């Protein structure tokens, strides 16, 4: 196995340790595994390590490397997601007020986190591409925009499915909902821009500029819509989420995070390979060459 994956695996292992092992042990009455760190900080360590570990994998996707890290990450993601969904659907109790519908939260909330993370990765890649003009950041930007768009679309669909039975409407003009929709359309526009520009240099720079402009818009849209109208439930933190809901939520968060990173890695690889042929077209085959001469 490539040595470069080791730091990523270590980070993910720390995340999994604090996210699952310590929490599960505490639930079952086994104390002392958490080194005396308060629960809130444990959750923060778990989330930070998981995100950093996943991001680390993004930086080792150079062309020529095997797709094995991405494949392993995707496999781990599917396993986590399957476990989380099983617990969320069959083991965790239904919520007191919303009943069974609330179980959609176990995919909805992690999707929201990951969609925002994917857009943030796109924003960071755009800045790095403009500063360094290194093509791999262009590839990563394209990958993360596409994955972010898919996640944002799923997020809107899940939100609508959840909103109909609880709020009585499919759609509501709430800040987070509206911001997600605006974000979805803004990034779809950038993908369209990429399709329309043939020159790879211009395509890279323009879509990076558009990504930065669109991302800066997110907080402004959020606050303007919040002034305008509001109904969405308040954001939850571990303190307001009951213990039994933690496990499926965290397992799914890890699962979707891994899947997201794996997809971005694979997608960035495709873009990078495409770009390689665009920047340096393969030599004509001999038969064609004969015709050309």
């Amino acid at each position: 196995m490539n040595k470069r994956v080791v730091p990523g695996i270590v980070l993910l292992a720390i995340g999994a340790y604090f996210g699952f092992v310590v929490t599960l042990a505490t639930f079952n009455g086994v104390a002392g595994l958490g080194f005396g760190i308060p629960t809130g900080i444990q959750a923060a360590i778990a989330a930070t390590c998981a995100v950093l570990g996943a991001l680390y994998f993004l930086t080792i996707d150079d062309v020529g490397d095997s797709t094995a890290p991405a494949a392993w990450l995707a496999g781990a993601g599917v396993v986590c997601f399957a476990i989380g969904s099983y617990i969320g659907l069959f083991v965790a109790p239904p919520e007191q007020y919303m009943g069974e519908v609330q179980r959609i939260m176990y995919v909805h909330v992690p999707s929201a986190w990951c969609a925002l993370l994917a857009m943030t990765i796109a924003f960071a890649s755009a800045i790095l591409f403009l500063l360094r003009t290194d093509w791999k950041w262009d590839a990563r930007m394209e990958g993360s925009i596409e994955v972010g768009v898919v996640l944002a679309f799923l997020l809107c669909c899940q939100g609508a499915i959840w909103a109909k039975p609880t709020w009585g409407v499919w759609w509501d003009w709430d800040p987070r909902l509206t911001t997600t929709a605006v974000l979805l359309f803004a990034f779809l526009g950038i993908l369209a821009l990429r399709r329309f520009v043939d020159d790879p240099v211009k395509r890279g720079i323009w879509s990076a500029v558009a990504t930065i402009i669109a991302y800066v818009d997110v907080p402004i849209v959020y606050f303007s819509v919040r002034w305008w109208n509001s109904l969405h439930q308040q954001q939850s933190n571990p303190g307001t989420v009951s213990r039994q809901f933690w496990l499926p939520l965290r397992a799914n968060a890890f699962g979707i995070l891994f899947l997201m990173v794996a997809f971005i890695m694979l997608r960035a690889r495709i873009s990078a390979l495409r770009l390689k042929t665009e920047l340096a077209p393969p030599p004509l085959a001999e038969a064609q060459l004969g015709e050309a001469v």
Partner: protein
Amino acid sequence: MIHALRKEFLLQWRTRAQLMAVIVFGASALLLFSFAVGPNAQMLRQFSAGFMWLGLLLSSTLTLAESFHAEMENRALEGLMLLPMSPRVIYYGKALANWFQLVLLGCALFPVMVVLYDAGTTDLLRLFLVIALGTAGLSAPGTLYAAMTAQVRSKQTLLPLLLFPLIVPALLASVKATSLIVLGDPMQQLAPWIRLLAAFDAIYWSLCGLLFGRVVEE
């Protein structure tokens, strides 16, 4: 900077027929909106601010998409880039000229709104402020995107696709502020919306100027 601005205004003056056409387009859009609601005077009056800004937004894409037309002909932009000045000067000249044109458009559409929707006001000063700030929010990112889309196929489709999601906060604040001016503002809510518009303008006028150099570089 002065010269860049002078060039833009000269260009606009020579193509003033286009501005007239865009104003007529916006006015006819306002006329059509009233058919969507039906002849309900009260409803029309209530939604008048929204209609006016949507009309303005739709017609602004026409002026913005055309704004780099002269620069694209005979690759004039490359000649401009060779001049010993920052590309930012070109951007701000173009953005200011577009802004001026959109303010004219807004001032032209307002009387149409008064006549069609019976939504007038005597507070013209504040209304002008809102129109100026709102159109500034359209002009800054619009000019930047126009510079990109002017160079690609199907620019008429791509510009709105990129611009519309982006200017949601500016549109929202402009509609809300105009509506408060026209329909009355018992809760004193106008100031926060104007502040939001001003913040949006400040962010995008600086950010887009910063990024424009990269967009036009060869």
